[in-house]
Every structure is written in structure tokens, then in C-alpha cells.
């Protein structure tokens, strides 16, 4: 096909205008980097479902001042190598402005530098303290209470239940050591004692030797800082070893499906603790509706909040870049603005120049300068007949 000089000239003059027109239609690109497989595989798929539903909700209401949200999904496999590969793809290839939903602390720690170096916002549900201590220059927002807060509340629960000698068995993770340090501190302040910790490789098929060592210290409570697959093995071998004392573990290890896969004798009386979503929030009701369950998991609640916060930040700043979200996030998440529970509720207010303060499904969503949440609720359960039963929520 011959290109005439006139056509070429017209195209050349028109090109900048075409680009400008596209820029205003440029979608807000968000990457969902979640554990679709691996130890976190019980949560990844519902987290992705909520992320996509939150984006669809906003898009159907007209988007963010006309801009649509485009979500791209990548699987971390609950493994830092795959997480980094996924992160590279989302940041370098799909050019996202924000990455949402990294779950395992090891994965988040590996992915975080990619994000802050590319000036992409990272919204994570991981708990390890070390994450917000990284030099992230404000590019990490974390809605999960950090290890310090979690261990403080969990150990306080043990003290309230008269524990005196606590032994910890922890999977090898970035939060294993920090957890034990905080458990030791809180126990000591409460007149009890931490009698030892064993950090194990979670891929092992047997922990009999490790459990023998733990039981030899005569604890009245065992603290399993575990993931679900290793917890299943530990509970079975603990029963076989004849231990009858107390056991406590995080809620993400003692999931309903893990509990139902084990015989009731193995799980009866097991305590679990978890940060609790804000059960009264309209945002929580929205997540219940998206997942079709009365009890959505805390991570799906958090990523719903991530998406709404991103949309509000973009609406406030008028730009879709990671830098824009970074600069505007705390202006919409906390402060003296009007309380809102969704981006759809808040965007019209922002458009008229008013300030908003988002509170979401996971809690008030107010962040420290390092990116941690200031506070949230916790729930404590005990397993009865293979199902968790709520003991207290505060």
C-alpha cells in the first residue's frame, strides 16, 4: 500500500492528539498478586474474586471520573520466587500502578523492593513486622495487624486462660523469631514463662522428634506458629504422642477446611486467634455478598478495602500513577473527612472538594507513617466437634 506524503503528514500531525485522547481513557491498572496455589491456596482465589468484584462495582458505577479499573492477576504460589516473577510481570509488562493482595510474609518481603523501586504502591495482607521496617519510602500499606500486635493479643489471651509454661513451634518464616520474642516479653510481664522454641521446615512430612523435644520441656500450652499443612501433621503427631495440654494457633492455619479434614479427637479444644473484620461495617456486608458467605475470611475483607482505597486515592489526586496513590492515600484513609464505606460513596464527595475518611470491611484503615494499621479487632475461637466456636471478640 502506498503511503502518500499527505497521509503521512496528517498522521504525523495527528499522532500527539491521538495519544492525548488515549491518556484520559487510560485505565487504572491494578495487579492482583495472590496465593492461588501453595500454603495460602485456601485464600488466594477468594481474594482475587473480591478484587475483581470491587473493580467491577466501581467500573459499573462509571469508574473513577470516567476511568475504568483494569485488574491483572498473577499467582505467587505462596513462594517468593514465583511471587517475584509475578511481580515483574505485573510491574514491567502490565504496567500496574498498584499491587494488591500479597499474602505470605516471605513473598511480600521479596516483592516489596520491586514495587518501591518502580514507584508502584504495594497493598499487602502479610503480618511480619520486618515488612514495614524495610526502606519502602511509603510505598507499602498493610491492613493486617503486624506480628507485634498479633502476638501481644494472642499471648494476653493465654495469660487470661492461666497459661504458665508456653513452648512455641514455628514454621520457618520472616516472623518466627519476632513472634517468639514478643510472646516471651508478654508472658514474662504476666508472670508466666516461655520455655523454648523450635523453628521447623514446613515441608517435612513428620515432626515427631521436634514434638518430643517440645513435650520434654513440660509446657502447659503449645503455641503453633504454623501454616495449615504443617498444622495438620503436628496435631496428628501430637495426639499420637499423648499430649493433653492446651494448644493455640493462628486462624489461618486452623481453617474450617483443614479442621474438617482431621479427626475430631485431633482438634477438639484447639484455640485459634485471628484479626477480626469489622462485622458491623457496610463494607463487610458487601464482601459477604460478593463471596456468598456469612463468614468471609479476613484477607478477602482486606483486599476489598485495598481496592476502595486505591480508587479514592486516584479520585482525590486525579492521576493513576503509583506516585499519585502514594501521595493521596492517607488523605482518604484517615483524618477529619466524612466517614465513607466505599469508593462509590466517597467519589462524589471528593468531586465536590469535600474530605473523606474511609473505614472498611477490615477495620478503620488508619495507617501509621510506616504503613501499619493503628488498631483492629481480634477474635478467639475454640474448636468443638471439628468446627471453630467463637469464644470472644474485642
Amino acid at each position: 500500500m502506498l503511503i502518500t506524503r499527505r497521509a503521512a503528514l496528517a498522521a504525523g500531525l495527528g499522532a500527539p492528539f491521538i495519544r492525548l485522547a488515549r491518556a484520559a481513557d487510560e485505565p487504572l491498572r491494578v495487579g492482583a498478586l495472590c496465593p492461588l496455589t501453595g500454603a495460602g491456596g485456601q485464600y488466594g482465589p477468594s481474594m482475587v474474586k473480591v478484587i475483581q468484584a470491587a473493580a467491577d462495582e466501581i467500573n459499573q458505577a462509571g469508574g473513577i471520573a470516567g476511568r475504568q479499573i483494569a485488574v491483572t492477576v498473577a499467582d505467587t504460589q505462596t513462594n517468593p520466587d514465583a511471587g517475584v516473577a509475578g511481580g515483574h510481570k505485573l510491574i514491567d509488562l502490565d504496567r500496574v500502578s498498584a499491587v494488591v493482595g500479597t499474602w505470605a510474609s516471605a513473598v511480600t518481603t521479596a516483592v516489596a523492593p520491586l514495587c518501591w523501586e518502580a514507584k508502584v504502591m504495594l497493598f499487602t495482607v502479610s503480618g511480619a513486622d520486618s515488612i514495614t521496617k524495610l526502606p519502602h519510602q511509603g510505598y507499602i500499606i498493610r491492613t493486617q495487624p503486624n506480628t507485634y500486635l498479633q502476638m501481644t493479643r494472642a499471648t494476653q489471651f493465654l495469660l487470661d486462660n492461666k497459661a504458665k509454661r508456653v513452648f512455641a513451634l514455628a514454621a520457618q518464616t520472616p516472623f518466627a523469631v519476632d513472634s517468639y520474642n514478643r510472646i516471651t516479653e508478654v508472658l514474662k510481664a504476666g508472670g508466666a514463662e516461655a520455655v523454648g522454641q523450635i523453628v521447623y521446615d514446613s515441608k517435612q512430612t513428620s515432626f515427631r522428634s521436634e514434638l518430643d523435644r517440645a513435650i520434654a520441656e513440660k509446657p502447659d500450652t503449645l503455641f503453633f506458629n504454623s501454616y495449615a499443612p504443617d498444622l495438620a501433621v503436628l496435631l496428628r503427631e501430637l495426639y499420637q504422642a499423648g499430649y493433653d495440654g492446651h494448644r493455640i494457633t493462628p486462624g489461618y492455619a486452623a481453617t474450617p477446611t483443614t479442621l474438617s479434614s482431621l479427626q475430631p479427637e485431633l482438634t477438639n479444644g484447639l484455640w485459634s486467634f485471628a484479626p477480626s473484620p469489622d462485622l458491623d461495617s457496610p463494607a463487610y456486608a458487601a464482601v459477604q455478598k460478593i463471596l456468598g458467605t456469612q463468614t468471609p475470611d479476613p484477607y478477602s475483607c482486606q483486599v476489598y478495602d485495598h481496592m476502595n482505597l486505591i480508587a479514592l486515592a486516584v479520585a482525590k489526586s486525579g492521576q493513576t500513577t503509583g506516585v499519585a496513590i502514594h501521595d493521596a492515600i492517607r488523605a482518604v484513609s484517615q483524618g477529619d473527612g466524612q466517614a465513607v464505606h466505599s469508593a462509590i460513596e466517597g467519589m462524589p464527595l471528593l468531586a465536590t472538594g469535600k474530605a473523606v475518611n474511609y473505614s472498611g470491611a477490615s477495620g478503620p484503615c488508619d495507617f501509621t507513617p510506616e504503613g501499619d494499621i493503628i488498631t483492629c479487632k481480634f477474635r478467639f475461637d475454640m474448636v468443638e466437634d471439628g468446627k471453630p466456636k467463637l469464644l470472644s471478640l474485642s
Partner: protein
Amino acid sequence: MEGAVLAVPAIGFNAVYAVLRFANFAVASIATVGAYAGWMANTALGWPVAPSLLVAFLVAGVVGVLADEAALRPLRPSGALTTAIASVALAIVLENALRFLFGNDPRGFDLPVYRDWRGFGLHVGPQQVRDAGAAVVAMAALFGFLAFTRAGKTMRAVADNPMLASLKGIDAVRIGRIASFTGLGLVGFGGMLIALDTQVDPLTGFRVLLSIFAAAVVGGLGSIPGAVMGAFLIGIGEEVSLLVFPATYRGAVGFLAILLMLSFRPAGLLGQRVS
């Protein structure tokens, strides 16, 4: 006890290597296939452990042969390395097929749990004894097959000297299928034994892949008795290492073993010298 359970998939891995001369990393997912098959027999049909183990063996063997025919046999003329790489891809495909069918949720067997037997300052689990017993029965059955049946003897002939065997008129393809069926069936049997102690999920076999490979390498690739020795050595070595190292580093024992073995005796304990 753990050595005995790992020995079975390690034997399967080495049996395939002995006859087909390539490292079949799909054992990771074949073990998981066996675990799911046994689990279905136990929970959906209500069968006890022994028949469920048989189902695990049969289903894993059949799936293994079919997968081999579809994905690996066409690549064997291109060399052992290519086939080994393809077997990694096959493992991922099978794992995700299982994930698609069953989801990520962990599953447990419908079996009672027992407390350990105690005596003389030791404690032993009835479950562990049962699993070790099953492993021994499987090994004995394999020994009987290889020593006394025509197909078994033919397999050993092909493993020993493929050229001579083909001159004698032995059909290499048929023997290859028998080797895959037997070896991968044993891997599935071992997969169910592992799942009995842990849980059934798409990663059941993958978690032990490197331990199986370590046992096979230490014992000597291609050697069936070597696989047994390797598995026991690694199992015992890991326990003994707890006296010296903290439990966190237990997983490294298998890899230290591979490193030492490949540095000083690359053929493994009982493997043939590579000329």
C-alpha cells in the same frame, strides 16, 4: 519409619530410571495422584487402608503409563535431559489437573487415630508401624515380581543391557510400559502412605520430591536396593542431625548427602559406574 515410607517412591523412581534411563520428575504429581485415588477409595467407597493402597497403586500406574505415552515417550529419542525436563512440565500439568478437579482444600482419610505405644522410654505409633509394614510388603512384592516373573526378569534384562535385550527380541516399548506402570504405581502407593501421615492436597507429592530424589541419588540412580538404602540413610541421617543442628536445618541433610555422594562417588552407593 519415615525412611521406609520414602523408600517406596524412591524405588519407583529408580525402577523407571533403570529401564528407561531418564529421571522422571513427574513422580511428584504421580504420588499425589495415588494419594487422591486412595483417598477416594477410602472416603467415597468406604474401603479400609489395604484395598485403598491397592487402588492408589493401580490408578497411579495407569495414569503414569498414559502420561508417559502422551508426553514423554515421544521425546525419549531426543535424549534423557529433554525427557527429564518434559517430566517436570508433566508434573505441573498433573498437579494442576488435580487442583482443577479437587481444589486446594486439604483432605483427610476416614480412619481412626491411635495414641502411641509406650515402653522402655520410647514411643512408637501404630500408624507408623502400619505404614512401614505396607512399605515392606510393597518392596517384597516388587522383589518377587523382578525375581520370579517373566516380565520382571525381562525388565531386569533391559535394565542391565538394553542392546543385548533388543537383540534377543525383547520388545523395548512393551517393557518400558511395564516398567512405568510398576515404578509409577509404586510411587502412587508411596504417595498414599505419605498422605496418611500428612494430608491429601495437590502438593502432597511435590513436598517430598527432593527427598525422594536425594534418596535415589544417594543409593545410586537405577538401583532398586540402592533406593531403599538411600531412603533409610537419609531418614536416619535427618534424625541423627537433630543431635547436632537445630531442627530448622533438618531439610539440608538430604542435600548435603547428595553433594557428598556426587563429589566422592557419583554412581551412588549401589549404582553402576558411569563409563
